[in-house]
């Protein structure tokens, strides 16, 4: 039943353009200042505007997209001797106090990137967005056309983020669908982005309907993540896992704090038997880290969980929320854990996003926080050169500011070599995917062939070239065995060839960037069929869907202030 060769799924089509950035412009019909999508299409550049009054508009911005991109990137180079802030571009962000949508200046200051905003009600604010301006600017060079879902669940009427769900203006399909199955939890994390009400568990019927909607929209999904709350508190969690374990879905991932796994071996065995993967929240290895981020010392409990996962060889992904001054010194230790355990497939660093019931109140300085370049630097420093800054690349399938990643090829002696040591990710862009492992797809087959030829040509010039070639030969042999393989088998084989380190910076009211939301590919699937981009859901829609006093979305509780952008005015239309 799960042979996709026999039951091919419909192919998703690429977007007709490459979405690059947001840029404000005047509506050609009513002259209102409107935020638009700058896209590269057929060698030209257009700004796609959605004016609340006049509807969609299209402006030709430049005749030569290559030149435009070069000039766009050049805007991010601060002239030598320049004093003060350097304006790179503008975008739409949020007031950190009232959540009103505001036009933000993206400025470079001391080689870092900041948002500068002015709310008519709450006053001016600034926020650090990136600790490395060069990384931030050059990430735009990785922009690549997105892919459409088989069906959009919402019509674009009022624009982003009002029409969330996803609408036809959204620039990427769902790479990683997430389903929240409970609002019960066994921790009260100070940085929790969810406002758990301890009110309900999603019923099996609703869950099945949610998965069905997801499959209808996506056709096939590499994975589905089940989270909460704490999903292991759901009384029918294994029924949910079984319901998600469909031919169209490669792997079912349980995003968990792991406490129940560590203390209940029978439960852990059931997870193993179910075939589910575990995405384990593990922010560090000492009591203080756990106390600050999770509310109490979890050192022993996490150690017990790790032991059980290792003993049962449950395929595991680690999620490490990194916070300035709290646990950044333990980043290297997390990498060591990834590389030292066969059953740990990937490591996902998430610079902390301070939003939601807990995170919104967490003590922090928005001008001094960890961002993706900061985590990359910490990885490089704390792994003693085993992993370097240059090993990471922005992920083009999401907005390139959202995710950075590297893949680590498993050599035949069991050690790992980062892919960028032997290939150029800008050339082999299809390798950069929102996937923890290498899939055995036809596209991957072609890419690996090209990589092998390129590597063969330079075998004696690059570090461990012969070993990398031997490993790629092994990967080719096992990933493409010359017989039909199921989606699930394909994933298992790919997982044994490489590991990955992802850095995913979710957004909060300080650094929210509507431009990034536009191409988000980590989506919350809803029971009503909507599929909500993650940070938009966390900031604007979760409150509207759950909890007390949420009849009106939090971000729509305030009237617009002063002469905001057209996007800001969207709120009053809800």
């Amino acid at each position, binding site marked *: 039943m799960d042979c996709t060769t026999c039951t091919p799924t419909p192919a998703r089509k690429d977007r007709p353009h490459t979405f690059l950035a947001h840029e404000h412009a005047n509506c050609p019909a009513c002259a209102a200042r409107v935020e638009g999508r700058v896209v590269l299409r057929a060698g030209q550049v257009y700004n796609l505007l959605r004016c609340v009054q006049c509807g969609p508009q299209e402006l030709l911005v430049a005749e030569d997209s290559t030149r435009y991109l070069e000039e766009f990137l050049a805007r991010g180079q601060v002239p030598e001797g320049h004093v003060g802030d350097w304006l790179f571009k503008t975008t739409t962000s949020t007031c950190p106090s009232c959540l009103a949508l505001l036009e933000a200046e993206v400025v470079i200051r001391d080689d870092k990137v900041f948002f500068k905003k002015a709310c008519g009600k709450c006053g001016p604010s600034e926020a650090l967005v990136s600790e490395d301006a060069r990384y931030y600017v050059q990430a735009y060079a990785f922009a690549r056309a997105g892919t459409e879902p088989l069906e959009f669940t919402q019509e674009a009427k009022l624009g982003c983020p009002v029409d969330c769900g996803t609408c036809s203006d959204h620039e990427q399909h769902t790479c990683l669908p997430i389903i929240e199955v409970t609002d019960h939890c066994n921790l009260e994390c100070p940085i929790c982005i969810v406002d758990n009400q301890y009110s309900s568990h999603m019923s099996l019927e609703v869950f099945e309907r949610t998965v069905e909607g997801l499959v209808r929209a996506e056709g096939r999904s590499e994975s589905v993540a089940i989270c909460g709350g704490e999903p292991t508190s759901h009384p029918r969690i294994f029924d949910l896992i079984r319901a998600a374990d469909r031919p169209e879905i490669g792997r079912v991932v349980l995003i968990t704090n792991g406490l129940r796994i560590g203390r209940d071996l029978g439960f852990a065995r059931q997870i193993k038997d179910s075939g589910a993967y575990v995405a384990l929240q593990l922010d560090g290895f000492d009591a203080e880290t756990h106390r600050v981020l999770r509310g109490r010392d979890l050192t022993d409990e996490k150690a017990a969980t790790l032991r059980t996962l290792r003993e049962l060889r449950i395929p595991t992904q680690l999620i490490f929320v990194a916070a300035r001054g709290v646990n950044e010194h333990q980043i290297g230790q997390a990498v060591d854990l990834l590389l030292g355990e066969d059953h740990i497939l990937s490591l996902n660093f998430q610079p902390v996003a301070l939003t939601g019931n807990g995170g919104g109140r967490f003590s922090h300085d928005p001008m001094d926080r960890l961002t993706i370049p900061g985590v990359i630097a910490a990885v490089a420093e704390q792994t003693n050169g085993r992993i370097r800054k240059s090993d990471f690349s922005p992920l083009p399938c999401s907005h390139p500011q959202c995710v950075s990643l590297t893949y680590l090829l498993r050599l035949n002696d069991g050690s790992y070599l980062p892919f960028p040591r032997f290939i150029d990710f800008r050339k082999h862009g299809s390798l950069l995917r929102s996937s923890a492992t290498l899939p055995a797809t036809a596209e991957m087959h072609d890419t690996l*062939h090209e990589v092998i*030829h390129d590597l063969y*040509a330079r*075998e004696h010039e690059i570090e461990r070239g012969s070993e990398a070639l031997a490993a790629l030969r092994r990967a080719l042999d096992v990933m493409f065995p010359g017989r039909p393989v199921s989606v699930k088998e394909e994933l298992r084989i790919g997982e044994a060839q490489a590991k990955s380190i992802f850095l995913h910076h979710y957004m909060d009211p300080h650094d929210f960037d509507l431009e990034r939301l536009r191409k988000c590919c980590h989506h919350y699937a809803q029971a009503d069929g909507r599929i909500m981009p993650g940070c938009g859901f966390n900031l604007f829609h979760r409150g509207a869907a759950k909890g007390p006093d949420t009849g009106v979305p939090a971000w729509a509780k305030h009237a617009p202030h002063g002469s905001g952008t057209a996007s800001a005015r969207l709120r009053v239309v809800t």
Partner: protein
Amino acid sequence: MRLLEGRVALVTGGSRGLGRAICLALAREGADVAFNYSRNEADATDLLERIQSTGARAWAWKTSVLDRAGLQTLARTLEAEAGQIDILVNNAGVGQVVPLALMEEEDWDRVMSVNVKGAFLTTQAVMRGMIKRRRGRILNISSLAGLKMMEAPVHYAASKAALKGFTEALAKEIGRYGITVNCLAPGILEEGVSTNLPESRLAEYLRHCALGRKGTFEECAEVVAFLVSDRNSYMNGATIVLDGGV
């Protein structure tokens, strides 16, 4: 300007017969020429001098086309000395007139090894630099016996047919790097592997050949010089028959 000015060519089995004619033709057209040989030092020395007399640089290696390590060293050394290898002519080959009934396993292995595996190993050693530079010309010397039903030794015909497949698959595989791979299939030539043919077979061939004669090494080498030149830029994966019209 000569066809191959500034190019560097490697010809396998270059010291004698068709290989020697190819080396001289390529040198005459401006290429620096390297070749390997397996036995006759005197022939190799003589050819070196002949090539150098045209003003071209020349190199000779006593290395078998079945010596993988030797070929890798050859390619590395030649690239270090000459700067690059632009052209590879897989010419080395052996033949043996023997009916299948009497063919020993060793006979089969020897012909298949030299004619097919030799091309594989040499190409693998040379294409590394070609991929890196995103350019190259590879020409495999096959035979009419690999394409048409003729009275030819089975192992020889099979090996030459294999070179056609080798050409086409490789052309597809590395065409993306600006490397073309083609195949030349001569009919019966005046010397070389056809010299031991029984009279009856030769007569039959000539009856069917429109020109009514055997070809020469020089005629064949002229075509090779064009096929590996930049003037022949769009041909890839092709097998060119040079048989006087059979």
